[in-house]
């Protein structure tokens, strides 16, 4: 894993998501804003291509930590830092575990993995933030989970495009990508 480029990528993606990427957010829906999480796309890309599970989980933790640092509001209180880092690390482990059973180069499986990743990570994050939120933390849990579901679908739809854009940069982030490693072993 190339850690410095990964951190730079995570930073750029977070910056994109918090500024320009807000163009993609649907702000005026009756349930609340719904938008894609492009950092999920980066984490899924890493999980699909990393060679070692430990590297992938640390990368997931870093990406989740960046989200924690750039998010302040959720279920009725100012959010805490940490839940998303852990959730991302665990979700990378989940994708790593099932990736061999799926056609990873196809758009369909990529979308399913991104959607499930987003649903699990964001759902866990919302649940943890609701636990910590004072006052009416659980009052809006149902609405928040609906937002999470729609955001996961939205994120999943963008996964093939992001995979296409990130593939040329794969060797910048991952020192020995999985396919390259396998080719080397065959020869």
């Amino acid at each position: 894993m190339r850690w410095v480029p990964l951190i730079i990528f995570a930073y750029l993606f977070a910056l994109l998501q918090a500024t320009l990427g807000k163009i993609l957010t649907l702000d005026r829906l009756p349930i609340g804003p719904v938008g894609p999480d492009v950092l999920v796309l980066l984490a899924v890309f890493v999980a699909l291509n990393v060679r070692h599970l430990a590297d992938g989980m640390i990368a997931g933790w870093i990406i989740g930590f960046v989200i924690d640092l750039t998010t302040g509001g959720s279920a009725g209180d100012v959010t805490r830092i940490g839940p998303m880092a852990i959730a991302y690390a665990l979700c990378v482990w989940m994708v790593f575990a099932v990736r061999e059973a799926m056609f990873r180069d196809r758009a369909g499986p990529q979308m399913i993995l991104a959607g499930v990743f987003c649903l699990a990570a964001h759902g866990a994050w919302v649940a943890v933030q609701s636990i910590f939120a004072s006052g009416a933390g659980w009052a809006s849990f149902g609405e928040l989970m609906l937002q999470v579901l729609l955001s996961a679908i939205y994120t999943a739809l963008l996964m093939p495009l992001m995979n296409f854009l990130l593939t040329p940069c794969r060797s910048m982030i991952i020192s020995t990508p999985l396919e390259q490693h396998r080719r080397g072993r065959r020869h």
Partner: protein
Amino acid sequence: MTFLSPASAGRVRGLFHWAIAPLGDAGMYFVSRVKTTSEPTGGISPSQARELKRQNEILRRRQRLLAARLAQLDGQIESGRTVISRLFGRSQDVPVKLIPARVVAEDSLPYGWCRLINAGQKQGVSPGLAATTRTLLSDRSEKLPKNLAVLSGQALVGRVVESSAYSARLQLLTDRGYRVGAQVHRVINPRSRRTVRHGDRLVKLTPQINRPVNVLACGDGAGGIVAREVRLAYNIQPGDRLQTHPDSPELPVAVEIGTVARVLDDPKHPGMVTLEISPTADLPPLREVFVVVPTLAGLGQSGGR
């Protein structure tokens, strides 16, 4: 050999007027003065003198009428000035200092309504302070020259929840965690006055008994504000205005928050209603804000909650 047509020649001369007019005006003034003073003046006949006297009398009467009319118009102008001064003139200073800031980023995730602004502790921004929109107001219909615009806080947008040296995080009033004590001002429609309970009896709402209704407003997380458990007897209706409480230590001035959009019955609490309020400020594209710092002695900045 070709000549310019009259139309083309007129256009060319028109262009040249810009070069002639500024310098030519002073010369023509001098020529006119000299010619007037050098005109020979002669005597008048008795009939011409009588005619002049008659005309003089007519002009004097007309002058008196015009003077009376002028006095009347002066009164109207003065009255108009008073109204304009009351509407747009300098009003009494409110005990706050305004820190201008600009929204530079949003939250990464879409589940909260927070914004990052580019003013922080170095500028005097600390948690708990309120923030308003920033609008340019002008009574001119023309393009404003630089440095002559008037800035005005228009509507509440939220409060500062986190602050660092040069940036701060703003929690917008539609965030689920936002709560503010506010007042509903009932709008009186002269054509159909609403009935409210005043003491023990039902009466028509008049300006004399129209006191603001205190409520606790909370963000609903979906771009709106709600105020729960408001007494039905107040008869709040869509269109009524929600403002901040002027006695609030964090924001000691009444600032517009929003407009009541819907009034819903509260099934859990009979005799109570829930108000759904639309914010006055357009929050998704929010860009320029004022952070409001109370300046009166004893008004603390009471933390982010």
